[in-house]
């Protein structure tokens, strides 16, 4: 217990950084992922190709490799100097965007073709169809898995600990420097993540139960 109480400000600061890193990357990856999903369902084959290639490459690349690229390799290209924190945000957003894209796309695909056909037959415009028929249904099947994807993003922020970005994963280093008990410290970090993730999992399950549509 003393490991936690003596370093309370360290723990709070680190978890605050984790949440900040998570929030920024979440927003960016949601925006980018939705754009990618739009590319992947677009009627233009080139756009679909770009979307598919991006998703295939990123889904099969380890996140750590993306981090290594942006922290160690990218600076050699002399394009734009970025801080480790920015590199972490960019890596996490680019990586998570691929999964957001897949979740959104699979959500759109769960809406039966008949729904869109019927709305067109009724004379709804494209925006009306999208806004009041397809998206409300798609959203129901998108939100629960999207919550899981965001949980994964929250946990992934710890990968940044290998790259000089302050967040909950670094608490270990700081405790080790002070000569505190690392074992206990890591258990507290793990507990912190359980506390952060559990409510999200609960929310996800509630959504899933309430919104599950029989098809």
């Amino acid at each position, binding site marked *: 217990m003393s490991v936690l109480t003596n370093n309370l400000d360290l723990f709070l600061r680190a978890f605050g950084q984790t949440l900040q890193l998570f929030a920024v990357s979440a927003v960016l990856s949601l925006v980018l992922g939705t754009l990618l999903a739009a590319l992947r369902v677009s009627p233009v084959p080139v756009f679909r190709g770009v979307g598919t290639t991006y998703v295939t490459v990123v889904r099969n690349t380890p996140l750590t490799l993306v981090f290594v690229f942006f922290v160690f390799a990218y600076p050699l290209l002399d394009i734009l100097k970025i801080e480790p924190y920015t590199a972490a945000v960019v890596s996490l957003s680019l990586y998570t965007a691929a999964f957001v894209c897949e979740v959104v796309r699979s959500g759109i695909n769960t809406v039966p073709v008949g729904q869109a056909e019927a709305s067109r037959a009724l004379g709804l415009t494209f925006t009306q169809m999208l806004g009041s028929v397809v998206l409300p249904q798609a959203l129901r099947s998108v939100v629960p898995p999207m919550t*899981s994807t965001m949980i994964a993003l929250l946990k992934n922020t710890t990968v940044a600990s290998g790259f000089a970005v302050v967040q909950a994963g670094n608490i270990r280093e700081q405790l080790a420097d002070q000569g505190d008990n690392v074992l206990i410290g890591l258990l507290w970090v793990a507990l912190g993540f359980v506390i952060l993730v559990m409510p999200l999992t609960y929310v996800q399950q509630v959504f899933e139960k309430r919104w599950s549509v029989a098809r």
Partner: protein
Amino acid sequence: MSMVLFDVPGPKARVRHKIMAVVGIAAVAAALVYVVMRFIVTDQFTARRLDWINYKQIQLSLVEAIGNTLSAFVVGAVLALVFGAIFAAARLSDHGWVRAPAAVIVEIFRAIPLVIMMFFFYYGLPVAGVKLSAFTAVVISLMLYNGSVLAEIFRAGINSLPKGQSEAAYALGMRKTQVMTFVLLPQALRAMLPTIISQLVVLLKDTALGFLITFEELLRWGTRIGGDAVNFGRPMIPVMIVVALIYIGLCLLLSWLATYLEKRNRRNKKVIKRDDNKAEMLVLTGDAQG
């Protein structure tokens, strides 16, 4: 492709799509040209920066690094499958005192980031006098996290079988174990195999997290050779391209196996139509993990 959102295009729309295609190709080409220009301008592919390929010792160390990655993957996968099977069985148990602790353990290990688990086993345990090698720490963490996800996948797979299957088996007088081993498991496994393999792709990617606890795997090899400023002038870009290609290649091989099995399942009439796709969603979203 998804035709939900669009009608079959008419002549005007086709022209518009062609224009957009040209713009799209131009944008992609411009981006590629820019990247290649940066590579050339900053001399990423000079002879000195590619020289490392010629050294036998480096080639051997590359093979060794791939071997380490693969052995962590294989050992981790086997352990995770066993862990998953045991905990799925426990979570499906009729006895509350077995079900509840199993559920708690699975949920907790799914909530803790893999990195923290690896730190715990590699940096934490020595404090208590238990010294584990980086390989063991990686493998144990992979087992605990991916095993928990696999337990959920197995459980979702068995729960997604139509109720009539187990009801009919019970009506025939089978016991719970018999229902499970003769009726539910064979059908669930056949239907679930592609999903399980997709989860193994995640496990393969997760081995790269071993980089953070100095496990000598492919990525660490890459940063070592790529960071060598004395002999090769920091060939980080070419080395990372090679490393990325190896990772993507290995993962794609596994993904293709999953897709192939899935296609074969779709053709095969013996494969049962399941009630939901919860297990697939578990993989899709769990995939976002490192």
